[in-house]
């Protein structure tokens, strides 16, 4: 998180923490499995081979990771700026529907895909505008406004799916994204589409944005120390607007790559069973990825792997899919503890320079809810 100040030692500490949390998560999962008479060895073997064992499995993991990278970026951008943007859920619903809407027209392939993506991005950004405006102008806390807008988006999406975008032949879903609007499959015979490139590209862009541009610097400065940043001339409302709109872009994009890239249906079902939850999972991914684009990529692949592997685990060890959620939840829970390493360390507390400690506390206080 505080990579500049912490330096290399700090990064190792963060990585260690993530690993410990991961181990604890799996241990808890194993414990529960044992309690109910399942065999954790065969289960975890199936899990890991189902996640990374061969090209097919790895492709499935990447396919799952594709939208997660993007929704995690939404949260991470906000976090870096000192804000909690959990609006990815609602924004991605509308992004997916926007992409589907483009299929109502007839367009050649290249333009079709581009236009779908643009629409989706705009949809996500438009939905995050109210959050930004309310915060900048009225001081409304973004956690509240995003929760509200997520719900409103959900019902709006239900309406659009059932009445406006409904497929006349199959009333349980929207019209499918037209053939020319679909992202080509990267690995045939799997669910992996070229959407993964879109996600990786977005991650790189966000990385460059945050660490190689002035505005990115301003965002991070606002996140570290809002008072000092404002004193230095950075205007808060500009940062707020920028952070939320960019977050809206990535969230909308997440909806788009999912609906444009996911075989076999390429549509949104009534009740949105395939995209619901991607926003909140992105939150968890962002946390595990320590809110850094590179970390997020790995964390998303980890999460995607858990999902893909979980399916195999269910198939071969008959351990229910949801065990994966238990592992995820435990990992996230433990990652919430910043002093995790100290908790497990048997050595005495290492003395950290006073200034460093104050800066660390301030960083956390400045950023958190």
């Amino acid at each position, binding site marked *: 998180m505080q990579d500049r100040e912490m330096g290399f030692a700090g990064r190792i500490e963060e990585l260690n923490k993530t690993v*410990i949390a991961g181990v604890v998560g*799996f241990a808890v999962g194993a414990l529960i499995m044992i309690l109910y008479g399942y065999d954790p060895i065969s289960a975890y073997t199936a899990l890991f081979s189902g996640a990374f064992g061969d090209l*097919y499995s790895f492709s499935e993991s990447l396919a799952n990771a594709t939208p997660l990278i993007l929704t995690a970026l939404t949260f991470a951008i906000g976090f870096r700026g000192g804000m909690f943007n959990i609006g990815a859920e609602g924004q991605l619903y509308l992004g997916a529907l926007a992409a589907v809407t483009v299929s109502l027209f007839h367009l050649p392939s290249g333009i079709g895909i581009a236009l779908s993506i643009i629409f989706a991005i705009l949809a996500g950004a438009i939905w995050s505008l109210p959050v930004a405006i309310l915060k900048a102008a009225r001081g409304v806390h973004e956690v509240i406004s995003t929760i509200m807008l997520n719900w409103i988006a959900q019902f709006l999406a239900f309406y659009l799916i059932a009445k406006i975008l409904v497929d006349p032949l199959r*009333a349980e879903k929207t019209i499918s994204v037209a053939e020319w609007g679909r992202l080509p499959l990267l690995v045939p015979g799997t*669910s992996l589409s070229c959407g993964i490139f879109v996600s990786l590209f977005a991650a790189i862009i966000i990385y460059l944005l945050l660490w190689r541009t002035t505005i990115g610097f301003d965002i991070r400065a606002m996140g570290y120390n809002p008072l000092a940043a404002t004193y230095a001339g950075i205007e808060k409302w500009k940062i707020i607007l920028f952070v939320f709109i960019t977050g809206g872009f990535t969230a909308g994009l997440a909806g788009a790559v999912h609906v444009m890239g996911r075989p076999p249906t390429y549509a949104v079902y009534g009740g949105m069973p*395939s995209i619901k939850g991607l926003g909140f999972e992105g939150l968890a991914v962002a946390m595990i990825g320590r809110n850094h684009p590179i970390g997020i990529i790995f964390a998303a692949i980890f999460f995607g792997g858990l999902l893909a592997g979980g399916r195999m685990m269910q198939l071969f060890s*008959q351990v229910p899919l949801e065990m994966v959620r238990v592992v995820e939840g435990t990992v996230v829970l433990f990652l919430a503890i910043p002093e995790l390493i100290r908790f497990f360390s*048997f050595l005495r507390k290492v003395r950290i320079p006073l200034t460093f400690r104050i800066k660390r506390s301030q960083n956390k206080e400045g950023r958190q809810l």
Partner: protein
Amino acid sequence: MKHSPKLTGIIFVAVVLVIGLAMIPAVAEAAPKGKIAVVLDVGGRGDLSFNDMGYKGTDKAAADFGLQMVEIQSASASDYLPNVRNAARSKSFDLIISVGFLLTDAVAAAAKEYPDQKFMIIDSVVEAPNVMSIVFKENEGSALVGALAAMVAAHYGYPYVGAVLGIEIPVLFHFEAGYRFGIDWGNKAYAQEKDTNPNTGLLYTYTGTFSDIAKGKEATKAMLAQKAGLVYNVAGPLGIGDLQAITEDIKAKGKEAGPPFMIGVDANQDWMGDGHRVLASMLKRVDNACYNASEAVVKGTFKGGLVVMGLDVQGVGISKDPDLLDFMEFGIGAGKITAADKTKIVSNWKNMRAQVPSWIWNAVADLEKQIISGKISVPNANTLDEMKAVRSKYPLKR
């Protein structure tokens, strides 16, 4: 500080490994003669109807033929294709059964990729030589319960009957279309017997969910308030909520038995509500479908193609006496009733049915005969437009 956490981590893993290894059973199982996979949609098990029946049928086949059954749940719609594919890829299943219309695209894709794998899908048609598509004539069964509902409502003085449906998938349109036709037919039959047409109307809603029980309860309450005498559950587990609303309504009047009544779906749900609150159920023998498909694979008679299970082959039907005992086992398994309740439920049920005049039961039986013989053809709907056409033909408004 760098080595300590890693050490702790290693200790953790070691402990887990040791415990885990110790738990591996050393007993070898008898090798199964075959394996069958059952893939479910996001609704999953526990609906006491559709999915549970799929399980029931396959389970019986597994027991009868010495097969191993593997159940595969789907947590999200994105799991459909990977689940079916994974099962096919493993090349270890003699048959992959997919329960439900929502799995159509997944099965279609996987069947193409794995032409040597046998598939079966319920409630949908996938045209491929290796896929057996089993569909039901829910409209025929629904016509029977619709007729019953209209006549019973009129008999007890209720102006409406209701239907609580789930998601607007083509399968549910079959139910709605048949139900409408049945109500209309029931009205006419009543007119013939009693010289006035009661014009029983229909209240219906698509709740948009196959899992939110509270919605079923609220929708039913709304219909009961508008004086519906019977409510048809066409949304799987929502029936639990429907029945609660009906039970509360009954008890508020100081009674124990209906009317109002619920009409069950897929499984025989007549035992629910102590045996005197669910008048009848529209049986959809998903269990038989799964059993037959499994049997076909074992005996080598499996053929791809369309299998239509209608009233004539008892693929659908209205619940009758013999089914009741069989399905009470369902309830016992779910923890809803105990074995001791069985006699009480059966006697309640008989009373409930006896209070409906026999001419009504005869009329329903007559309708059944006419449908089976082909004299009456029950309308059907697969798309929204077709459904709208049926709705305008039988508006059932008052």
